[in-house]
């Protein structure tokens, strides 16, 4: 009786959240400043569990921030810098309008600056955290690094991003941590493994930039501002982890002669250009120390109690080592039409040597006429003055080799040849997914590498034959594919039915022809029976789980449909191809 009635919305969820406007009022910032702050500090809105309760009974849509987050923001020293900057802008405007050049210059010189070090530290308490969140950072920096000069973005951001990405690429080359590459229509994807973290980033195809209108570049700039700081610190740390000078120093500094292209540049620019050529190795802190081969220790079986795992880890390490030295001993030469930076980056990351015509860019190490070149990468149907001592291949070969962790046969990558499909290395096929035949062939080859490799080497002859063989192979693979597909579903039933049909099987042994249809019938019947059983069992799923079950089944069905669709499409294409080739043969 005497207990006071508690007022509503005075504790719990209602007090844990704050709408955006409330937050802005509390921090006394403009919306733009608030957003900048959120970007820099990595504060994002939260979705409360019960919106209505948080909004004190109203159902109006609002964005909510955690009150704790906002309190955390309120102590940020950068807020004061924002205010100072506002003041600075006002003073500067005044000076400009009064045409007071002196004052203008003075004010400009005293432009308030802020540092983001502490924010980086705060957002990523450990280095692993920072690495884990690096994907967006890298993609943004690479995007800005490739942007053309223009009014939309400040040059300093572009230059800074470019510098840092070049440094990062140097690290990847030096540490040989690139793992996967993929040419997509959007850009070129790279995946590297740095300190156990998978970093994936995408670099746009750098031609024909169009700045879209519906993009707010200020937001992107704020992001890049933070990301460049982050990437700088990460580069520093990474360089030191493999004993490199941090502002990177090239192995051969002053020794290299000045190119014609470089004549007009300042010393610094020239250095930057050489650095971004990616063709030289960096100077190490401990001179001549070299990398030590890390031998994977074999743990005693007692500790791990799973000898298989140790074995597996060993195999994995072996594989990676092989991949890291994929192009070792190969000398590449890039024609001018191929994307130079990407290919240099990839080839150098896997231990190859690479050069290009010196008129294309700074930093070419050997000319085209070098006889020791083993591969020349060409993206044109025909080339004059072919050297007999080297292979001419299309750039996709490099990418496919990396994704397959082995040097692929080059026949289908010769200049002018129709390229085999370029598959994404990021797809991990789950059961029931559609696997393109090419991919399946690769998987098969990887599984039974020894047997197939010999066959493939022998595979050289007229193109027609090859095609036929390929087709056959594909057919086989398809059949193989189908079998497990069917088998997977039916295996269980088969086991079940085996016992039941044991008697019949005995009978069947006597007359094969008569038995077959009966057997089929029984199977069908059994199948029907199991289906019915399943249906009956499904009926007993309680209502609560029923919805979830239905959802899962719907998703499964959808996926199966898609897989089937792709399969059918492929089959149709194959049959069409076959018929066409037959026609051709007939004509011939």
């Amino acid at each position: 009786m005497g207990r006071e009635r508690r007022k509503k919305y005075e504790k719990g969820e209602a007090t844990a959240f704050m709408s955006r406007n409330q937050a802005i009022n509390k921090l006394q910032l403009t919306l733009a400043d608030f957003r900048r702050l959120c970007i820099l500090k990595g504060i994002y809105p939260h979705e409360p569990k019960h919106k209505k309760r948080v909004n004190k009974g109203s159902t109006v849509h609002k964005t909510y921030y955690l009150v704790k987050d906002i309190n955390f923001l309120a102590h940020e020293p950068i807020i004061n810098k924002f205010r100072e900057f506002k003041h600075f802008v006002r003073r500067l405007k005044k000076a400009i309008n009064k045409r007071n050049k002196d004052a203008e210059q003075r004010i400009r010189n005293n432009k308030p600056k802020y540092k983001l070090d502490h924010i980086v530290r705060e957002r990523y308490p450990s280095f692993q955290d920072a690495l884990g969140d690096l994907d967006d950072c890298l993609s943004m920096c690479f995007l800005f690094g490739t942007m053309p000069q223009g009014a939309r973005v400040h040059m300093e951001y572009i230059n800074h991003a470019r510098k840092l990405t070049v440094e990062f690429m140097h690290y990847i080359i030096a540490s040989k941590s690139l793992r996967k590459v993929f040419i997509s229509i959007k850009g070129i994807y790279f995946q590297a493994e740095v300190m156990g973290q998978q970093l994936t980033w995408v670099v746009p195809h750098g031609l024909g930039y169009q700045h879209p209108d519906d993009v707010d570049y200020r937001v992107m700039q704020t992001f890049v501002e933070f990301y460049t700081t982050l990437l700088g610190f990460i580069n520093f740390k990474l360089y030191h982890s493999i004993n490199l000078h941090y502002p990177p120093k090239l192995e051969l500094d002053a020794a290299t002669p000045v190119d014609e292209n470089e004549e007009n540049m300042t010393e610094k620019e020239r250095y930057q250009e050489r650095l971004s050529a990616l063709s030289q190795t960096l100077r190490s802190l401990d001179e001549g120390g070299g990398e030590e081969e890390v031998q994977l220790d074999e743990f005693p079986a007692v500790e791990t109690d799973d000898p298989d795992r140790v074995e597996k880890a060993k195999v994995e390490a072996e594989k990676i080592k092989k991949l890291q030295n994929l192009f070792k001993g190969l000398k590449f030469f890039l024609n001018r039409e191929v994307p130079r930076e990407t290919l240099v980056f990839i080839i150098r990351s896997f231990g190859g040597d690479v050069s290009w015509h010196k008129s294309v860019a700074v930093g070419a190490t050997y000319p085209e006429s070098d006889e020791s070149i083993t591969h020349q990468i060409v993206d044109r149907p025909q080339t004059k003055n072919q050297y007999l001592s080297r292979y001419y291949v299309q750039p996709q070969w490099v990418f496919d080799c990396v994704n397959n962790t082995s040097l692929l046969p080059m026949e289908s990558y010769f200049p002018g040849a129709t390229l085999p499909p370029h598959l994404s290395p990021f797809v991990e096929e789950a059961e029931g997914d559609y696997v393109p035949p090419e991919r399946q062939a690769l998987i098969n080859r990887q599984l039974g590498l020894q047997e197939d490799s010999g066959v493939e080497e022998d595979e050289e002859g007229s193109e027609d034959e090859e095609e036929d063989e390929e087709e056959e192979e594909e057919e086989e693979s398809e059949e193989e594919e189908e079998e497990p597909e069917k088998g997977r579903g039916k295996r269980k039933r088969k086991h079940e039915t085996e016992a039941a049909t044991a008697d019949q099987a005995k009978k069947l042994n006597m007359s094969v022809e008569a038995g077959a249809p009966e057997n089929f019938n029984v199977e069908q019947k059994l199948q029907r029976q199991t289906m019915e059983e399943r249906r009956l069992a499904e009926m007993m799923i309680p209502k609560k789980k029923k919805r979830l079950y239905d959802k899962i089944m719907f998703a499964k069905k959808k996926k199966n449909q898609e897989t089937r669709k792709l399969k059918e499409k492929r089959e149709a294409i194959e049959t069409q191809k076959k018929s066409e080739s037959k026609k051709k043969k007939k004509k011939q």
Partner: protein
Amino acid sequence: MFRLFISGRATRVLTSSSTRNRMSSKSRSKRKPDQFDFVDKGANDSDSSESEESVYSGLEEEPDTSEEDQEQSSDQSDNDSSDNDDDDDDVTLDDKSGLELSTEQRKELSTASDDELNEINDQRYTGNVKSQNRKQRKQITVKTADRPDEYDYDSSDEEDIRNTVGNIPLEWYREYPHIGYDIEGNRLLKPEKGDQLDEFLNKMDNPNYWRTVTNKMTGQNVVLSKEDLGLIQNLQSSKHPDSMAENYQPWIDFFTHEKMIHPVTNHPQHKRSFIPSKWEKLKVGQMVHALKMGWMKPTKAKTEEEEEENFYMLWKEDEESEITRRYRAHLPAPKMPLPSHAESYNPPPEYLLTKEEEEKWQNMEPEERRMNFLPQKYSSLRLVPAYKRFINERFERCLDLYLCPRKPKIRMNINPEDLIPKLPKPRDLQPFPTAQAIVYRGHSDIVRTISVDPTGQWLVSGSDDGSVRFWEVSTGRCMKSITMETGSLGNMCIRSVAWNPHPDVSLVAIAMGQTVILVNPGLGDKMVTNNTDNVLHSFSPTEEESMGKKVYADWSSIDTSDKRFENGFRLLLQHPKEVSQVTWHGRGDYFASVMPKGDSMSVLIHQLSRRRSQNPFNKSKGMVQCVLFHPVRPFLFVATQRYVRVYNLLKQELSKKLMTNCKWVSSMAVHSGGDNIIIGSYDCRLSWFDLDVSTKPYQTLRHHKRAVRAVNYHRKYPLFASASDDGTVIVCHGMVYNDLLKNPLIVPVKILKGHAISHDLGVLDCVFHPSQPWVFSCGADTTIRLFT
């Protein structure tokens, strides 16, 4: 404007003086002859070019006066100058008087001058300019020109023929021979004017005709001189009226910037200009102090290193523990999905979209699309263009990162098989009916109800065609068919049939319209049928009992002589309302009938042995759907639309009320143990109640897709069946354990299909065989089916 009034002599003097003024500015020596030589114009041309005064050369003195008026009206400066120049005695004498006079007759003069100037209007306005010019010229020429005798031309005897009529329209004088009056009051006669012919001749002969104008004031003809014409022309072409006037005189710069001899001002220099500023001294002092104290530092030239960001080892291994983690669990943003095969620049051909798919993709909203790009195939890397939406996608990602509300989401990895409850396999729960064995055909309309005889040998069915058929279960033969006579009953639908459960009695209760008919089918054991007949026949009503009691149903037995007796009709119970259901008590003596519209009488319990009916309830609790007797105990289950009430018939009280949680109960069945009942409802549900545990359903099964019409328990086997409008009968295993702690096990074991759906009705009733695991079902397709 300063005007002088001129009267008489004084006027004349003044006039002359003013003219003289003007004369002085020009060559005055030649003035005199010019003034009087009106006729000989050509000779004086050169002179007159200088003299502006000779405007009206045709007049004697008039031009002077008129001119004078112009001058007077022109400018004060002119007057001043004239005053200055007037050193003439006459003028000095008369000056004052003239001035005095001026106020008196100002009007007169002004009117005159106005009229006079009608024709030479243009000229008058130039006076201002002229006077100014003249002033200048005076300054320049004063010294140079010889000063002639100023009084040469002064003619005081000049006749002034000024018209004094004033500012009036001159038409007024049109009729008169005179044109006005002179200053003396004498008439001024109009000059001779010829007729038109003269005019014409004049025009033809006179070479000066074109430059002759008429002075309206005097009527005189005036020939304009060459100068006048030039003047007029100049005015017309908006030039300076004086053709000789110099517009662009040489500028004499007295103070040149090149040669400044004299200071502009001659102030002595202020003291503060050579004493050092105190304010500055203070400021400098402050700065010096600040520099000394190290508060102020000289600005350093920026070095390049400074401009660049300096990075250092932000994360040190050993400091890891010091860092306080963020105060809360951070929700990292989900990573961007990795590209699939379809995104490749050279994907396998099956990933490319066909035309229809592409169109579909284009027509979809961008948010709905599963892929945000169209797969493309390029034959070589060199042909791959930049992706147009790359920046947009990055930007969207940025927006997602800082604007999108985040929420922890638990991603469950659930195997759908795990969701299916672990139940025994139906195969292990045999026996249960699995296949259709016999179809009983014969009815011509919906078969609404069926019932099996307690021995399991016979089956009775009631149909909408008004017939009741008796079938042999094992063969499917129709042993007997009774077609009800419509008669007064109207509705001949058989709503319900029920076979007496007592094995020694061969009786079937049939509900049709408002009657319940008890029929002895005469099938099976002859002993039993005869016994039944005998028992019924030997009944003698006891009068006392029936007296004074309300009769709820009208019992009537049928005579042996009646034709209906042959058909097996034994007793008729006439009810006040339509009967929807009859059901027997387990012993076979009592049976209950349901009249849904009977209000308080909706349930009646009839006793066969005493042939009387009672109404257990005196109040209606809703529309009764069906009733059932408890198989062993004296309970009655009454199902209304939503609830099932359990009445204790002995204590005459309500013992339980079951919440069915369904919208409309259709049917009900009791387990042979009596502790479990199932209820079917029109909203597709089947609820199992465990009476010992709760009044709420133990389990609700939604197996059927349409309304459940009938439910039934098997008497011996742990089976129950439900019949539904979707045309199926679902048989479930429903095991009730003797152990009270163990919940009943319910497993659906078979979906029996066979009945066709007609008129949206499927299976209407289902009944189990009393001893075998068989189930009978009847449906809207007029058949009865047996599943074994």
